[in-house]
């Protein structure tokens, strides 16, 4: 179709407004931060330490919970069992509840006077005000992203390929690691990136479980509360830049993998 299309033009206009809504505040933040401010902030020990803490806790949360989430996603994709839909809905709960409420829930679960807290103390592991607590809070709010993406990835792998592998003498474990996992890998990697990114940007749940040591979102909030916008902004800009570098790198990595088409 050719010629003037008012509807199409209107949709493009709406899309442009939407893009502006996302880009304008970010661009404003970047433009109002001078290069000197940017580098000074990046060199600050507290900021660098907080960014490093945010990166490794979010990565560790993703990796630790992936060990359970990926096999569980395969179960959700392949097996029929009672209450499967209820269980799938439970997995999505962290996405829909306020994250401060999630933080309260986790704190209530791992505080020192709870069974889990006492068990942790016994093992020399404390969750409140520690990186372990940060990892728990990050994982709680971000796990649905991995489980859902991995489940969709496994669903896209034709089941007959797994059956063929079994028939060819492979054990269920070998089938999982040589057929299911490689063929669902692109979706799983995408889920891992989303889980990691979501965990890294978490504020509400983490601030309740572990105000200290400060992850960067908490540091930005603290600087804003104590010193105002102009002190919080450079930290936010540095953090966004670091996140973007990792995000772009991992996205490029994920496009190398192709999902199975059977």
């Amino acid at each position, binding site marked *: 179709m050719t010629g003037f299309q008012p509807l199409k033009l209107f949709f493009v206009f709406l899309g442009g407004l939407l893009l502006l809504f996302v880009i304008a505040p970010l661009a404003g933040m970047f433009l109002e931060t001078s290069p000197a401010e940017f580098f000074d902030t990046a060199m600050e020990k507290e900021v660098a330490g907080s960014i490093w803490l945010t990166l490794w806790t979010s990565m560790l949360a993703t990796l630790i919970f992936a060990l359970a989430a990926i096999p569980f996603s395969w179960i959700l994709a392949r097996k029929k069992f009672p209450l499967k839909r209820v269980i799938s809905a439970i997995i999505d709960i962290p996405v829909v509840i306020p994250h401060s409420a999630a933080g309260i829930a986790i704190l209530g679960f791992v505080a020192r006077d709870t069974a889990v807290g006492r068990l942790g103390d016994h093992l020399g592991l404390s969750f409140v005000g520690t990186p372990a607590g940060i990892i728990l809070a990050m994982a709680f709010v971000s796990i649905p992203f991995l489980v859902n993406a991995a489940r969709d990835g496994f669903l896209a792998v034709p089941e007959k390929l797994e*059956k063929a592998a079994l028939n*060819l*003498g492979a054990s269920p474990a070998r089938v999982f690691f040589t057929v299911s996992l490689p063929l669902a890998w692109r979706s799983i990697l995408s889920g891992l990136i989303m889980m990691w990114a979501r965990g890294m940007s978490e504020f509400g749940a983490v601030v309740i479980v572990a105000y200290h040591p400060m992850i960067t979102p908490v540091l930005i909030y603290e600087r804003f509360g104590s010193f105002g916008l102009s002190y919080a902004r450079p930290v936010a800009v540095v953090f966004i830049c670091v996140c973007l570098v990792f995000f772009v790198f991992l996205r490029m990595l994920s496009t190398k993998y192709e999902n199975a088409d059977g």
Partner: protein
Amino acid sequence: MLTVKDLSVKLGKFELNGVNFEVGPGEYFVLLGVSGAGKSVLLQIIGGLIPGASGVVMLNGKDISREKVQRRGVGLVFQDAALFPHMNVFKNIAYPLRSLKLNDREIDRRVRELADMTNITKLLKRNPANLSGGEKQRVALARALALKPQCLLLDEPISSLDVQLRRELRSLLRKINANGQTIVHVTHDYEEAALLASRIGVIENGSVVQTGKAPEVFSRPKSEFVANFVGIRNFFRGELRDGKDSMKKFLFDGGEVSVLTGEPEGAGYITVRGEDLIISEKRWESSAANSFPGRVIALEPARVGTEVLVDIGVTLSALVSKESVSNLQLEPGSKVWVSFKASAVKFIPG
């Protein structure tokens, strides 16, 4: 060799009902049935890939019904080959050999041997996405043969290929069978069955309704599906009862016909060839014991003459000349009489 006894399973609306058949060593057994008859499910049950079926599957005298998939000794080739898309042809064929924990040199030797037999040596480095349908099936065959299965199960391996590729693959399957490999092959294609099978089983409504050598199955069909294939359009299931004198009555859903047969009473099938049906405007006094009024439903051109479908309570198909169509002024809706002799009706017990 392979014995399937009273195999039953219910999967949603689909059901297999007490499937029974036997396949001898080195035999090429083709299970013939329409799409949805349960052929693929049956193969997967034999392979242990669909659990929950009742009945017994014996292979070389050993009950493998509860055996693990990996230890059943049957190789399954899926309809669309089910090659692993992330592995090249070499890795696909080597996949089962890695389960045997062979060293790389031995794996290489075995893969090349299988590739040579299936004529795919040039394809070893190619990815499945770049293979034609026929090439994929050859790779799937080589891969399934790698574990030297006692019985090879083929799920419509030829059906989706074009004529030339079909010919080539049929020739390969004959070669594999000639090497002593027992094969169970399921298909909906009669031609495939007739050209490959040393014995045929016909599967209908979830059970095997007839087994035998191809000429026997096709000359005395016990299913409408096979009857239609061999050109018999008038096929009815019912019961033979005692009648007057030498003639017997065959009762079926929709009518009753006289049959001249020496077979004893009981359940079975009747067939009447379209060529043996006579169409007339009025009731025709003749030696034909069966004469029914009816209405023409449709006229369809046949290879020779015209096929006239007449509703007499059930639909009968008569083959008449174009001249007769013109002389009798036959058209949909015409009232006619259909007659045939009791001796034209073949009764097949079963």
